[in-house]
């Protein structure tokens, strides 16, 4: 098989861009190519990437999950509430939050599969619902040690130091725990999607649902499971966020949805996959992180960040859909 220029650019164009950008930043600011700088890039995208890896699961079955941002935020609030107000330990809290994420995913799946509500609308609804629900237990206040509760008493619990380590400590004094979690989840979901029969069926469903059903796949169960993966991953993201911030902040997590979805969609362009894939999602998240890190080091103002991310997303989508479609036909 001969590779044309187009084939090559579809396959490796994105990596060429990545390397080109890295070299550009290095030339402009040599400190960009340092271990510290790299670790910072990884750390800055860890939580976003975890959400993006989860939403990749729903994209694979041909769905979409808009509720990941508010699941993460709710999970953060739940973790803070459990520790500060109920005085729970780390293990119970983590289990509670993950169970919460899985439950929301399960509900999303039920609404979409059995309620026949289109995925975007169903998850938009749960997103809205959770944004409001997370404010109810504390009457809209952020959760911190020693806060005054709605009934006038003072909260007695505090964040367990072992919980805070999840967000703040580093493995071998270099790699933050959140980055380790991100890499572990990335490997797990990559292996799951690429090498197991469950992942294979999920891709089949995303490509032709009817044919998958007639090949014997329990399509409804797979779709619900995909939303549970996405909810569970988002909840883990929320746990790490709570551990990093050390308080249940009502306003954090605003950008998580857009950043996560953008990373997953940019991932379509990686290696010319033109489909959701875990490796691409991770690279997509890192690409955005690197770009922002580079621009920040070059003193680009912080308020340009969203515009840069949006531009990257539009370019990546054009790259994926315009080029691969033409090559395919």
């Amino acid at each position: 098989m001969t590779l044309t220029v187009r084939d090559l650019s579809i396959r490796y164009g994105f990596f060429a861009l990545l390397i080109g950008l890295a070299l550009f930043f290095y030339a402009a600011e040599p400190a960009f190519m340092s271990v510290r700088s790299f670790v910072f890039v990884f750390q800055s995208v860890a939580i976003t990437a975890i959400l993006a890896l989860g939403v990749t699961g729903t994209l694979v079955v041909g769905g979409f999950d808009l509720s990941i941002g508010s699941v993460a935020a709710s999970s953060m609030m739940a973790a803070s509430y459990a520790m500060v107000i109920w005085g729970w330990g780390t293990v119970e809290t983590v289990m509670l939050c993950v169970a919460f994420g899985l439950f929301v995913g399960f509900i999303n799946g039920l609404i979409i599969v059995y309620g026949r509500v289109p995925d975007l609308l169903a998850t938009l609804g749960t997103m809205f619902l959770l944004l409001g629900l997370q404010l109810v237990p504390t009457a809209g206040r952020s959760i911190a040690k020693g806060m005054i509760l709605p009934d006038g008493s003072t909260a007695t619990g505090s964040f367990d130091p072992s919980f805070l380590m999840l967000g703040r400590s580093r493995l071998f004094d270099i790699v933050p725990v959140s980055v380790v979690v991100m890499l572990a989840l990335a490997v797990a979901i990559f292996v799951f999607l690429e090498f197991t029969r469950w992942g294979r069926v999920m891709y089949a469903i995303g490509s032709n649902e009817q044919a998958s059903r007639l090949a014997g796949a329990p399509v409804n169960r797979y779709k619900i499971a995909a939303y549970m993966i996405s909810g569970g991953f988002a909840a883990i993201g929320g746990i790490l966020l709570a551990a990093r911030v050390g308080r249940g902040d009502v306003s954090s997590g605003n950008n998580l949805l857009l950043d996560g979805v953008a990373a997953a969609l940019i991932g379509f362009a990686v290696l010319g996959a033109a489909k959701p894939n875990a490796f691409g999602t991770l690279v997509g998240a890192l690409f955005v992180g690197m770009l922002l890190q580079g621009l920040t080091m070059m003193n680009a103002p912080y308020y340009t960040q969203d515009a840069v991310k949006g531009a990257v997303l539009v370019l990546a989508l054009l790259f994926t859909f315009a080029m691969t479609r033409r090559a395919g036909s």
Partner: protein
Amino acid sequence: MQTGQAAPANNRVLEIAGLEKSFGPNRVLKGVDLSVSAGEVLVLMGANGAGKSTLVKIIAGVQPPGDGRLTLDGAPFEPDRPIDALNAGLSVVHQQINDSVAPDLSVTQNLLLDRLCSGKAGSFYSPRRARREAAEIQAILGLSLPLDRAVRDIPLADRQLVAICRALAENPKVLVLDEPTSSLSQREAERLFGIVETLRSRGVAILYITHRMSDIRRLADRIVTLRDGRITGEFRPPLDYEAAVTAMLGETVRPAAMERGEAHATVFSVENYQLKSWSRPFSMALQAGEVTAITGLVGTGKSEFAEAIFGVRRPAAGEMRLNGQPYAPKTSGAAIEAGVFMAAKDRGTNSLIPAFDIARNLSLPFLTRRSRAGFIDSGAERHRAKRTIADLSIVCQSETDHMATLSGGNQQKVVVGRWLSEPSTLLILDEPFQGVDIRARHDIGRRLRETAADRATLILVTEIDEAVEVADRILVMSDHTIVGDHRTGPELDLSLLLAQVAGDQTAENMPKVQESAVG
């Protein structure tokens, strides 16, 4: 039938000469000549994939012709867009009624849709004027439709009348009706026939596309049959319906050339089985080692029967037995588990995964057997794929080729190969030769016969020559019930079989048919 005689040349409104159309390497129309005269109902008959819908799309201006000449009322007719065809005096009512109406708009707005879209109605919409014009339009057919209701709230048959009225609003010279009765009840169809007769008497040239014998008997002034992109027959009064069916389904009906299978124990049976609450109950049994074909026109319930056996549809009544045990699968997964496989018709929609390569398409239903602890053994998967490719002579570069790179025949081989890659108790193939060239058809048929010994094989085909070619036994389905049971071979009574396919009324003409057909 007042216009039975051959229409004089100057009476021809729509003329088509040498029409060609190809999609890639696939020649769909191979030089079609056709003309429709004023005040005539010309019935165009054709089985699935004969090229009917392509023909309609070309004259409706949806697709450009590949080659050939179209004339409307003596002037060259080259519609680039549907609106051009409409302005030139040709209206089309498509088979999918919901494609012809905007469901959320009112009946009034739907009747005026062409005027609204073409800008003839001006920039501002006046409800009063619209209502007046809509009332005028429906007066053409003397109807009283609920003008203010949304189309989505009125019955399907009424929606179709809306579509027909709309088509008549611009006073067309030619009206094309594409399988208009396919979703109508008997009474609704009667009303439609009345309207078609009214239009005929007013001098509209009507091209009526169908393969329903009841429509044809009621309306046809002339019949033209389309098969495999060519006109295979033209019938003028007195109309020989039998011959028309033969011309539509294949002139090459001939005894099979393949060796027959030997029937063993009964594998699968149904008792007092009813596909629909109104259909006549039937019983049948399938034997191991035998290839049984069910034939019958489109829409007579073949696929419904297959889907019921495969667990994706529930019958109205009756029970199934598999190897003597009661069998009632709730899902396709349960059917596969029990050893009942089905290769569904329409491979693009129901079988193939476009994102997957050949090997992955082949293994999809059997991933549990191809994996250990959930991990797919991709080496074994590719190895098996190579074997299937060799067994069925699939033309490809390798087992990692994607579906889009394969021809239709080879795609179909992948579908059949998928279900042959594991042993089954009952294998159902719904239209396995759909859109497949003669060579691929032969490869598939040969492989089916080679592997048929240990299972019962059930093939659903509309084209009788396919059934004769590959099957040991042919069942005929009509009106959702089995009406005939034949053995293939020299003793096969083809004329009786054809009569059963064409429906009861023709069966009464049997003596005459028997003289003429077998020789």
